[in-house]
């Protein structure tokens, strides 16, 4: 799998921490492999919306990758509940069901972006970078910044 310029947190230069939510173990493993190529760290995993909420509280991740169709509680409802408790939560919906109404519903409930499955790593990387904004930089940028500061 292609390696991407490592994304790290601006505040402490540590790897970006992800919460991966998907009822498919296969999908979670696939996303985890992508996260590793982004230089990130999986802070927690969940297989349904209810667990996602408790895992969010426990791990306080920088970003959440959330499936929509899941047992017990679907991703859009879980996203809404997390954002209600944590208004700054950054949630990216990752689903194969990418029709307009679904995307609009997710964004209205507080999700920041939507990525359609099958996930292309280069698309997810750009979305993560966009959603994290100034809170994440590439390792190379951080190193260049540190170099300038030293001079």
């Amino acid at each position: 799998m292609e390696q991407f310029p490592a994304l790290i947190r601006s505040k402490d230069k540590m790897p970006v921490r992800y919460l991966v939510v998907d009822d498919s173990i296969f999908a979670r493993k696939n996303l985890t492999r992508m996260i590793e190529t982004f230089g990130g760290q999986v802070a927690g995993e969940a297989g349904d919306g209810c667990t996602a909420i408790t895992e969010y509280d426990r791990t306080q991740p920088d970003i959440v990758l959330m499936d929509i169709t899941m047992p017990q509680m679907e991703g859009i409802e879980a996203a809404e509940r997390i954002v209600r408790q944590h208004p700054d939560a950054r949630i990216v919906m990752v689903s194969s069901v990418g029709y307009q109404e679904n995307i609009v519903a997710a964004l209205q409930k507080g999700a920041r972006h939507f990525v359609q499955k099958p996930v292309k790593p280069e698309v997810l990387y750009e979305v993560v970078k966009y959603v994290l904004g100034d809170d994440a930089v590439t390792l190379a940028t951080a190193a260049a910044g540190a170099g300038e500061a030293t001079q």
Partner: protein
Amino acid sequence: MKMDLIQPFINAADAVLAETLRCSTRIGDISMDEDAYRRKGMAALINVQGDIEGRVIFDIESPTAARVASALAGQEVPESDEMVKETVCELANLVIGNAITSLNDQGFRFKIMPPEVHSAEEGLKGSEDTEALVLYFETPAGNVYMNIAMRYNRRRRTERQMAPA
């Protein structure tokens, strides 16, 4: 069964298999089947409810499923491994999700259920309204079978059309 209901599933399967396996695929035989479904290997069943109702069975022979799972996992996965089942379910999810997206953009409203592993030797039988379309895709890893039984839910469509805007 209308082909305009089926075509999005064929297109989605073709695109998803090509994308995930990073190879070209070829559609093998297509036929209509009213007999009970007999699975070939590891099968995932997804039910659809709403303006269109029915089910799709996504079926992969076990050695092929293991090869696909290994290719996607980047490491050898034995046929008995849970990951093989997971791979088939997720591929089914991807295909059906993409097809649903296309049908939804055409104005159909419905919901898909999470995939369930289909282990019975004989599956759901088609009916006059829901005869199944059976087809397979040839991939370098082996054949991938789909069995699609869909019908319009006329009552739901009529209710929606009659509802005041």
